[in-house]
């Protein structure tokens, strides 16, 4: 099994390494923390073509796809200080932000009513993230039983976190103090554990 360090720093969605050098997460954090332009240049090189390709697929219009590259990477730059590992991998953060920018861009282009925006359609990750455990009554019984079985398969460090939060019903702060780990580490572990449980449940179905 992985060491704790590996487990906590490993994103829930595996990275696809396109080249050696710093991970996308390291670059994005550097952009957010110290406005690191070199890091941004690297992110730009890694993502602009992917964003353009997504834009071409969704808009079938080269000009709009180019606008999307600008809009999305502008959002990456301006929102980078808000990124942390709790929000998932850099790839999923950039994917989501690009898809949402594209959705809102197209609505504007088509002069649709502005009642609904991408943020209404795809609620922020944090709301949906814990929903596997916080469930409405109907499906709760099934999922809790499933989770209890699957929970055994988690690494010990993640089991401990799940136990603190979902069995002893502690707050994040209390659990971090109990386990003598930083709050950020606790949150990352919890996130990974929930993502892993979710994947396992998916595999079972």
């Amino acid at each position, binding site marked *: 099994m992985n060491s704790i360090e590996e487990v906590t720093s490993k994103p*829930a*969605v*595996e990275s*696809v390494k396109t080249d050696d050098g710093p991970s996308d997460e390291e670059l994005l954090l550097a952009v*957010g923390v110290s*406005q690191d*332009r070199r890091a*941004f*240049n690297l992110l*730009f090189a890694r993502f*602009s*073509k*992917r964003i*353009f*390709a*997504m834009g071409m*697929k*969704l808009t079938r219009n080269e000009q709009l796809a*180019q606008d999307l590259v*600008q809009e999305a*990477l*502008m959002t990456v*730059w*301006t*929102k980078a*200080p*808000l990124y942390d590992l709790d929000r998932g991998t850099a*790839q*999923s953060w950039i*994917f989501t932000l690009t*898809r*949402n920018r*594209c*959705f809102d861009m197209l*609505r504007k282009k*088509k*002069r*649709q*009513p502005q*009642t*609904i*925006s*991408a*943020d*209404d*359609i*795809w*609620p922020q990750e944090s709301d*949906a993230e814990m*929903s*596997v455990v916080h469930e*409405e*009554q*109907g499906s709760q019984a099934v*999922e809790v039983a499933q989770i209890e079985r699957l929970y055994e398969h988690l690494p010990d460090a993640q089991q401990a976190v799940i136990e603190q939060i979902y069995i002893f019903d502690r707050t994040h702060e209390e659990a971090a103090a109990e386990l003598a780990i930083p709050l950020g580490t606790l949150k990352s572990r919890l996130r990974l554990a929930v993502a892993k449980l*979710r*994947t396992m*449940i*998916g595999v079972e*179905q």
Partner: protein
Amino acid sequence: MTTANFHPSDDILRDFAQGNVTTGMSVALSAHIELCSSCRTRSSELESESIMEWLKLEGDSEPDFSGMIDTITALPQLTTEPQINSAPVNSDDLAVSEIHMLDRSFTLPRVLARAASNGLKWNKLAGGINQAQVQIDNETQCEFLYMTPGSQVPVHRHQGNEVTLVLDGAFEDQFGHYGPSDFLVRNKRDQHQPSTEEGCLCFAVLDSPLTFTSGLARLFNPINNYRFRRATSQRF
């Protein structure tokens, strides 16, 4: 909360995760996902798969974008999350988060409350049906439908796709019986005649007008076509 028995297909959920469906359809899917834990799990898996696919995309004939970098890095960065839902809402007292019909009341999923935030205007249609259209995009007709207990929709066929999300109560047609959170897709081959004993509140999205295929109800066809054109008035 009853667990749904009818769910969107993986294909639809994948397109949704990729942002590749109309706004109207996205609203119906988002609402179902809020109500249905198994689709919530499934759609996040399909989103992860979509991200993996996306990361593999590598073209080499694209324009060179590097000229943008200086413009972008000259911008100030944000330190707090921008206010979401900054889209104007006419007035808070028109906002609808609950729908009351006869003796029922129903709390709407978040995205539908948002869709109804300009207020709902109910119209009575043939056969005990009440309809309140909401203008979401220019490509679909979106509406809340309330079928009063014992009502029956005339036999109809769809020229395109019709998605129905059951919010409260139940209805049935020759293909099955549908209850809260169920998500149905009917395409142009399906001719059906929904009816309800207990009454039913739904949210429906059509991507083209209905065609009634029986008797007097056919008289409604020109009206439906007109309604659809009005609901989807192209204003490019």
